[in-house]
């Protein structure tokens, strides 16, 4: 039974998060000395992958310097990028592998930790079968590591259950794009954004979650373009919007069908484009007929006039573009929401040129590259379906196994947790994933982890999930290994190894190789460098959709990134997809897809009358394993707050700063109110970066989109009541803040 060996407070005392405020040696001493070298690499936080230079001396990262020549961000950074180097030389860093004992974790040798891990896995697999062990990967890993996670699970462990935390991020968009276009990638490079005449941003807190994209949007405005924002909240990107559509949580798809309704009614669609380059238009046109702006207004809470205006702007624009993110994707109809946006762009012929396209904003550091090469439960390298027989043969030949030895599709991340809870899966090997913070319904996740017979976590820091581990293997930070990532544009970038891991921590891929060797798979995991893994990955992806064969580290450095697909060594890469309306399905055509409305999995009713929605703040990254340890970032927004409109607050007698108990069908949690007019009065918002009693995921529900398997973080039903008492965590902090 995997239970924390000590009270959580004790574990926090021992392993953090503690706050690092100063560079190595303090502001006034050691850190003033000049750097030995400036290493051109990329930020580890978020899918923008801004270029940054890290200052290195004596095998330590001691600061940063903007990288102004890198074309994507030209030196721009958000506060996470500026302070990212404070994760280095951090007192919380795990110095070596740990093993759980009755009295806590104790540091052991690598030999002991790896032997024990392999012994337990073999014992469990012998007793319950290969599929009783699951593997979790993460989309902040380099592509080499992500590739290795998939290969390790399928070849070394022989389990079909491998999935990753991108399941909580990009899968709704990925599924919709694959269905519509035959490829899962934003079709345009970011430099196309300022050329849009109309840009609609749907469900994206762009300025906080992908900050440097803001400048691209403002440039679009300066060029005379119009901005439309769809969001139940006014986030910073809405401050210069021309049209604001305050959609009611969970009703997005009706808004988009209504916009298409008006476009078709007014004859603003491009029939010639539709006839020549798409399939399925008639059915979709028929399906949106019922969604008049008046009817849509009733459901979505967006005025009919605003819907008409958005439709006219999008329909009449020479070049229109849509950007979308988790707001529409974190829903039990996340795929439908994305498809409905794609339908608008297809109907208006907005693809394949500057300023025109439907684009997803990938969230995690390697959110794009991390999902292309085989750590998704249903895909093999090159973005191939795991059921593509030709693809299986090709990948099997690269992996030196028989095609039938590659397991078929396994469970998604949420389903793996379900199976742990049911006892069907008995053991978990997890890297770069913090499910106890990031998955919905914390109590369920906790129970599932507690039921596991064996949990092995690989991470540079003791994450809250690692509290449940039998073995914690001290892994590496991004700057401690070489590799590639693909940014939000599908631009493959080169991550440089700036330093080696401290103490007895190790580079992640070496840990996987050592485990594989001990599992009897030495010859298939005999890499001596990241480059060797990359070269194998290039070969494995060859001929696939995400074809990396023509990409080399040297080419990336020379071109400042290479956009995939890049099928041959003399190929320059593909910055813009779908030029000349050539889509990537075999027939070259795009698909319109039906987007029927369904109610949320956690519907608002008289008992739970208020919508609860969740998201991020600019100063934190995902589950906070890294950013909750950086003092300057924590100080910017130390604790989760409940955003509530004054009208709703008044109804419940709540004033700014009051404690509010929020109850859903799962649980109750208390947060401090932040009374703001920048949210719908039927909706409250709490960001999700915190663990335990501060976690909003105590309250969220486990409904998933049936196709993408993404959880519905953006729509829960809740009740609220003013709380007379502060929650225990606030009392423990002695803080009013």
């Amino acid at each position, binding site marked *: 039974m995997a239970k924390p060996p000590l009270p959580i407070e004790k574990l926090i005392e021992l392993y953090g998060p503690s706050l690092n405020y100063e560079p190595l040696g303090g502001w006034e001493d050691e850190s003033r000395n000049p750097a030995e070298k400036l290493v051109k690499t990329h930020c580890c936080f978020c899918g923008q992958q801004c270029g940054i230079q890290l200052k290195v001396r004596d095998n330590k990262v001691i600061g940063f310097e*903007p990288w102004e020549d890198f074309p994507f961000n030209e030196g721009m950074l958000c506060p996470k990028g500026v302070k990212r180097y404070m994760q280095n030389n951090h007192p919380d860093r795990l110095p070596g592998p740990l093993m759980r004992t009755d009295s806590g974790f104790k540091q052991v040798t690598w030999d002991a930790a790896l032997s024990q891990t392999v012994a337990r896995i073999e014992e469990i697999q012998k007793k319950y079968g290969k599929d009783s062990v699951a593997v979790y990967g993460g989309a902040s890993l380099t592509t080499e590591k992500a590739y290795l996670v998939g290969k390790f699970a399928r070849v070394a462990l022989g389990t079909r259950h491998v999935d990753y935390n991108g399941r909580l991020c990009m899968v709704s968009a990925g599924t919709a794009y694959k269905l519509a276009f035959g490829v899962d990638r934003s079709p345009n490079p970011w430099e196309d954004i300022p050329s849009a005449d109309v840009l609609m941003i749907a469900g994206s807190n762009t300025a*906080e979650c992908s*900050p440097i994209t803001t400048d691209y949007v403002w440039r679009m405005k300066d060029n005379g373009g119009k901005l439309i924002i769809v969001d139940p*909240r006014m986030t910073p990107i809405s*401050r*210069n919007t021309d049209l604001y559509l305050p959609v009611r949580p969970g009703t997005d798809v009706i808004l988009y069908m209504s916009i298409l309704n008006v476009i078709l009614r007014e004859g603003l669609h491009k029939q010639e484009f539709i006839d020549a380059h798409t399939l399925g238009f008639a059915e979709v046109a028929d399906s949106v007929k019922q969604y008049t702006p008046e009817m849509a207004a009733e459901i979505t809470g967006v*005025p*009919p006039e605003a819907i008409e205006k958005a439709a006219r702007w999008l329909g009449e624009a020479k070049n229109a573009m849509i950007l979308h993110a988790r707001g529409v994707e974190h829903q039990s109809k996340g795929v439908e929401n994305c498809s409905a946006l794609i339908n608008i762009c297809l109907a208006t012929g907005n693809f394949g040129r500057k300023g025109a396209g439907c684009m997803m904003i990938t969230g995690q550091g390697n959110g794009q590259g991390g999902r292309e090469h085989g750590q998704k439960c249903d895909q093999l390298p090159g973005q191939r379906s795991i059921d593509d027989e030709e693809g299986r043969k090709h990948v099997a030949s690269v992996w030196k196994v028989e095609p039938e030895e590659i397991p078929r599709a396994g469970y998604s991340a949420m389903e793996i947790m379900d199976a742990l809870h049911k006892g069907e899966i008995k053991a978990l090997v997890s890297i770069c994933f913090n499910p106890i913070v990031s998955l919905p319904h914390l109590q369920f996740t906790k129970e599932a982890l507690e039921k596991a017979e064996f949990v092995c976590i690989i991470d540079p820091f003791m994450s809250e999930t690692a509290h449940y581990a039998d073995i914690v293997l001290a892994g590496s930070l991004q700057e401690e290994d070489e590799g590639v990532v693909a940014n939000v544009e599908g631009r493959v970038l080169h991550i440089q190894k700036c330093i080696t891991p401290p103490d007895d921590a190790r580079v992640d891929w070496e840990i996987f190789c050592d485990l594989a060797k001990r599992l009897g798979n030495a010859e298939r995991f005999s890499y001596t460098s990241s480059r060797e893994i990359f070269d194998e990955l290039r070969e494995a992806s060859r001929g696939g959709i995400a074809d990396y064969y023509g990409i080399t580290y040297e080419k990336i450095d020379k071109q400042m990134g290479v956009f995939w697909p890049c099928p041959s060594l003399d190929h320059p890469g593909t910055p813009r997809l779908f030029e000349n309306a050539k889509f990537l399905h075999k027939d070259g055509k795009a698909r319109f897809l039906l987007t029927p409305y369904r109610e949320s999995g956690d519907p608002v009713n008289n008992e739970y009358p208020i919508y609860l929605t969740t998201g991020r703040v600019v100063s934190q990254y995902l589950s906070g394993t890294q950013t909750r340890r950086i003092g300057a970032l924590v100080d910017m927004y130390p604790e989760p707050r409940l955003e509530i409109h004054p009208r709703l607050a008044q109804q419940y007698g709540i004033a700014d700063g009051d404690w509010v108990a929020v109850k859903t069908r799962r649980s109750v949690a208390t947060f401090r109110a932040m009374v703001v*007019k*920048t949210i719908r009065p039927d909706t409250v918002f709490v960001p999700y970066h915190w663990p335990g009693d501060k976690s909003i995921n105590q309250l969220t529900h486990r409904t998933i989109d049936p196709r993408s398997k993404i959880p519905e973080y953006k729509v829960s039903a809740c009740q609220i009541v003013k709380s007379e008492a502060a929650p225990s965590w606030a009392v423990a902090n002695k803080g009013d803040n």
Partner: protein
Amino acid sequence: MTEYGFFIDPSRCIGCKACENACSECETHRGYPMIQVDFLDRTNSIATVPTVCMHCDNPTCAQVCPADAIKKTEDGVVQSSLKPRCVSCSNCVLGCPFGVPKMMSRLDQMMKCDMCYDRTSVGKRPMCATVCPSQALAFVPIEQITRERKLKPTNVFQFGNQTVTTKVFMMVPEDTDEISIDVVDYIWEKGESNDTQRI
């Protein structure tokens, strides 16, 4: 040589504080930012504004300094107080019409933005304007900003009877109608007139 200017456009600011965090990395005031970002009125709006030294042509801070401790460089950068002269009286803090100088009790000295003299003097851009992800703070050639931006730069400010001209430019909007900032004004509710829909 191309003439670079420092431009502030509060309407672009997203409140992320990349500038504050980057400023605190400076060699001359390590750990302490000389710039600040504030919400104007968080209850009513997400609008934020960065405050940076405007580097006045005839700096009020220097005018009111009884110790003559605040100097301007030849290229128009107003510097922190000279440590040997500064008497920590805070006249400059009170006198500045833009609210910029800070009395650093730790150092017993007034500190303020010096436009990253260590960087600009070797051809680099100031740190805040380099990292600013919304380019609300921009350090670019003057002809570039007038070509690319809709808003216009100005460096003339009227404070009562005092006219202040500055090295740093503020981007100002063309005539703008009132912008509503309450979500309720944009929501459709049955039975209500939508006359209030403003955009």
